[in-house]
């Protein structure tokens, strides 16, 4: 079959990212041709500021070099501007007459800088800040001239000004608004920013409107440089139209020499950088009659009004919005690639963006609506002398905007709360002080990535240092946490350092850091989120993994080790007794019903209800240990006995000899119920915690959950069973039982939160069971209860579990799921289930 022809106009970051995504999912669908107006292959445009400041070189910021296009069989035309689209014949034409036909056309023409319509804007020495050519012009000017004027005190203008100052120029920033970056900052933060930039040597003229750029040096007075103007006079041009009478006969320069303002003042300028904004470049599309409104209008699939033509990046208007930051553009790329690949799923629904200034030594972050307004509340922390300012804007107890100055380490966290529209009920008190417990184990308690030295280990599992991550981000052009994981493995194992890695990513990339989208696909095998997968399984009654994959257009034939176990769990938890449990989609521990160890042997933990045992059980355990030469016996953290170093082929006979139920230490299931001795023996005990623990364990064992699920019951508030760090912790008090949920003692130490106080043991069972079932039905696979409750909010959990109708329904569904479940050990030991799993073949 002949391949379809895909032609892309524009060779920038959004377009090339779309091609990359497309090649990943449909490598053989198209013959691809790319036209770029610039002489360079794809470079990281957002890193032009560090290049200007001399912190990086052009080589550092190349994302795809010419070889990349060749390797992927892409025809690349550089230096060739497209001037015409013929939609009838489906061809495009370049300036030099090259004609190319297409089946699909992708417009990625980016944006143009806005040039103020003032006299003199075409003079030599007046540039924008958009591409490598502009940077080259600025660098050339900085080496032989002195005075630079940047018009525009927004993000781009300030980065340009900072760069030019680093290059030794005397820089004045002219800004129309009363404070800097007025679209990203409130006045307080902007003043702090201005002060620190002034301390670095920048000058500012605010509330100032430029009226003219002139090639006549200024006379004297305001802004006049002390050393006069030393520019060479040559090639006198025609007299300036607006030349005041007293200036007749003044020496004119070959290039810009001054900037004049509406109030009559003027300052010397050998270089003028216009950074007053960008405008989507939709001229080509407009000339071809494609509907545009300030940008090329696209729908949620990135398709224009011509169904064969897609558009992406800064040139588009999506739902009336054009984006100039890279994170939203990459989200568009994914969607666009999916549709170009004829998969037809995935929609782009718009983005919330954040801003971070890439000026070394200045920490500034803003996102969302930070100026407040009716119906909003503000939480403000201001320390002018210390140079720290934080303003959070809330509406209906949800974060709507944030401005941070001086300390932006929590920016990524606030941005996440904002995008997820999370209810702040339970975290509001410590919202201002930042994200608690960014990860407490394995990295020396560090929570501020920026303060970490380069050689400090970030990922304790894989031995990855901060320096290695930063190097990979810069060298390989990484933008997302998934990219970093793929290339460095950092945060790819236990995940406890994810927060730190995200911070490193955010601080390395600035505002262009692509935060993990709120709606994130389950894994690379699918476009669908966990929630969408669950809904499909529920609504369409999918009962097997192949059916689920087929229904949802899985990209890989059998998924991966990430999604298969998740799908298996979603199927059996949604359709208990009906869906087919697939052992080959379970991780080895759940397949073998024992925990694999590094040498390939297994460990065996028999269940002891509530941690209570007896002489007969202990004798059997001792006999088994002797008979099978078990090398080590340990007592676990959950008050059970663990036999280590068991050969896989011995497992079924050990289970038979033990004659005790499976302890599920290997499973994402109810693990143990830890108990204290309680009122039966303890002089402080107010309740029979051991009895309660046994009842809970007997009621809820042998059921699968999204991740492991641990319980504890203490008989008094002294809490010897450590109930405060369990998924459900029950604490006896004189008048009944307190139930606490979503505690965690592992990767992320977190104290359980109070759910409810009840009177009777029956109520403890019902409330605990309802919470367990809600977790089973709604958490994502591999979410511990702490992660899940943090995401949905305790208020939500309460609304379900404390409501009687809801609670009883949840409890009923749990009891139904539990009905008739066989002990997996007995099934294997006595009935020979899955026999092949345990027997080796021999020659």
């Amino acid at each position, binding site marked *: 079959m002949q391949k379809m022809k895909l032609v892309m106009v524009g060779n920038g970051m959004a377009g090339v990212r779309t091609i990359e995504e497309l090649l990943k999912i449909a490598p053989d669908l198209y013959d691809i041709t790319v036209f770029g107006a610039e002489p360079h292959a794809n470079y990281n445009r957002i890193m032009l500021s560090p290049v200007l400041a001399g912190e990086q070189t052009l080589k550092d910021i190349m994302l795809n070099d010419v070889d990349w296009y060749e390797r992927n069989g892409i025809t690349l035309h550089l230096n060739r501007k497209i001037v015409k689209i013929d939609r009838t014949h489906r061809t495009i034409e370049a300036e030099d007459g090259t004609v190319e036909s297409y089946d699909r056309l992708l417009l990625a023409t980016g944006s143009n800088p806005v040039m103020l319509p003032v006299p003199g804007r075409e003079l030599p020495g007046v540039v924008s800040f958009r591409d490598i050519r502009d940077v080259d012009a600025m660098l050339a000017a900085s080496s032989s001239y002195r005075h630079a004027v940047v018009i525009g005190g927004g993000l781009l203008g300030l980065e340009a000004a900072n760069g030019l100052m680093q290059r030794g120029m005397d820089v004045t920033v002219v800004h129309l608004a009363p404070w800097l970056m007025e679209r990203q900052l409130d006045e307080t933060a902007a003043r702090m920013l201005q002060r620190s930039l002034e301390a670095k040597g920048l000058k500012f003229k605010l509330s100032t409107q430029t009226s003219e750029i002139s090639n006549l040096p200024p006379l004297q007075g305001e802004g006049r440089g002390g050393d006069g103007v030393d520019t060479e006079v040559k090639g006198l041009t025609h007299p300036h139209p607006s030349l005041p009478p007293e200036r007749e006969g003044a020496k004119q320069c070959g290039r810009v020499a001054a900037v004049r303002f509406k109030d009559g003042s003027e300052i010397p300028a050998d270089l003028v950088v216009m950074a007053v904004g960008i405008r989507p470049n939709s001229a080509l599309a407009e000339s071809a009659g494609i509907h545009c409104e300030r940008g090329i209008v696209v729908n949620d699939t990135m398709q224009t009004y011509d169904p064969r033509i897609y558009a992406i990046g800064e040139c588009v208007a999506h739902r009336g919005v054009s984006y100039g930051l890279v994170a939203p553009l990459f989200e568009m790329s994914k969607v666009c690639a999916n549709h170009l690949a004829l998969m037809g799923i995935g929609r782009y629904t718009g983005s919330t963006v954040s801003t971070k200034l890439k000026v070394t030594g200045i920490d500034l972050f803003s996102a969302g609506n930070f100026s407040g307004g009716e119906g909003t509340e503000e939480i403000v922390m201001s320390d002018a002398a210390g140079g720290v300012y934080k303003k959070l804007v809330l509406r209906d107890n949800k974060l709507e905007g944030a401005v941070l100055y001086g300390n932006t380490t929590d920016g990524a966290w606030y941005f996440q709360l904002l995008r997820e529209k999370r209810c702040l009920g339970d975290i509001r008190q410590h919202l201002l002080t930042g994200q608690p417990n960014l990860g407490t184990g394995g990295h020396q308690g560090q929570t501020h990535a920026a303060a970490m030295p380069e050689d400090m280990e970030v990922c304790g599992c894989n031995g990855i240092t901060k320096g290695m991550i930063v190097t990979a981000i810069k060298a390989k052009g990484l933008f997302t946490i998934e990219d970093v994981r793929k290339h460095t493995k950092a945060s790819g194992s236990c995940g406890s350092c994810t927060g730190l890695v995200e911070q490193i990513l955010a601080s390395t990339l600035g505002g262009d850091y692509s935060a993990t989208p709120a709606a994130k696909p389950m894994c690379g095998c699918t476009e669908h989120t966990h929630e969408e997968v669950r809904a499909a399984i529920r609504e369409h009654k999918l009962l097997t993994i192949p059916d689920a994959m087929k229904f949802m257009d899985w990209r890989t034939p059998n998924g991966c080790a990430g999604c298969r176990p998740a799908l298996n769990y979603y199927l059996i938890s949604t359709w208990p007794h009906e869906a087919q449990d697939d052992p080959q989609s379970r991780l080895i521990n759940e397949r073998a019903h024992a925990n*694999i160890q590094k040498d390939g042997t297994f460990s065996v933990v028999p269940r002891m209800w509530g941690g209570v045992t007896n002489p007969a059980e202990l004798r059997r355990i001792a006999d088994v240990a002797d008979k099978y030469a078990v090398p080590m016996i340990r007592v676990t953290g959950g008050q059970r006995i663990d036999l280590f170093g068991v050969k896989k082929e011995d497992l079924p006979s050990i289970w038979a000899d033990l004659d005790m139920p499976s302890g599920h230490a290997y499973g994402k299931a109810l693990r143990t119920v830890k108990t204290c001795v309680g009122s039966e023996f303890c002089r402080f005990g107010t309740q029979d915690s051991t009895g309660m623990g046994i009842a809970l364990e007997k009621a809820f064992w042998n059921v699968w959950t999204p991740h492991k699920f641990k319980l504890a019951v203490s008989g008094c508030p002294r809490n010897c069973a450590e109930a405060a760090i369990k998924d459900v912790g029950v604490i006896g008090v004189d008048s009944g039982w307190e139930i606490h949920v979503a505690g965690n003692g592992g990767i992320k130490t977190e104290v359980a939160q109070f759910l409810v106080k009840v009177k009777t043991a029956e109520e403890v069972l019902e409330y605990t069971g309802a919470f367990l079932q809600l977790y089973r039905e709604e958490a994502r696979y591999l979410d511990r209860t702490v992660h899940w409750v943090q995401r949905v909010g305790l208020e939500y959990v309460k609304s379900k579990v404390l409501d009687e109708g809801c609670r009883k329904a949840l409890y009923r569904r749990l009891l139904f799921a539990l009905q008739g479940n066989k002990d997996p050990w007995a099934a294997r030991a006595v009935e020979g289930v899955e026999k092949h799993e345990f027997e080796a073949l021999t020659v």
Partner: protein
Amino acid sequence: MTDWTKICALEEIPRLGSRVLESAKGRIALFRTETDELFALQDRCPHKGGHLSQGIVCGSHVTCPMHGWNIALQEGRALAPDVGETAIYQVRVENGAVFVLI
């Protein structure tokens, strides 16, 4: 000396699963894909020696149960970003019986 040795019936190896073969050459992992292709690899992950036979088979690779390395069944090579290789053995199926060249 290597010889084609009869091991078991194809049906004794689960689809998308594996069996361990104890041989004079050590542990060999036999994998069966969804499309009934068979592969034999030394049962040792090039990373830290994990038993590949205990991993999850997806498409034409297996994911090691220890630290999640992906090993291509055909060549025994680790998929990027990891680098490493494990020995492979020839396998064939004849009249429903599995033979390995060992």
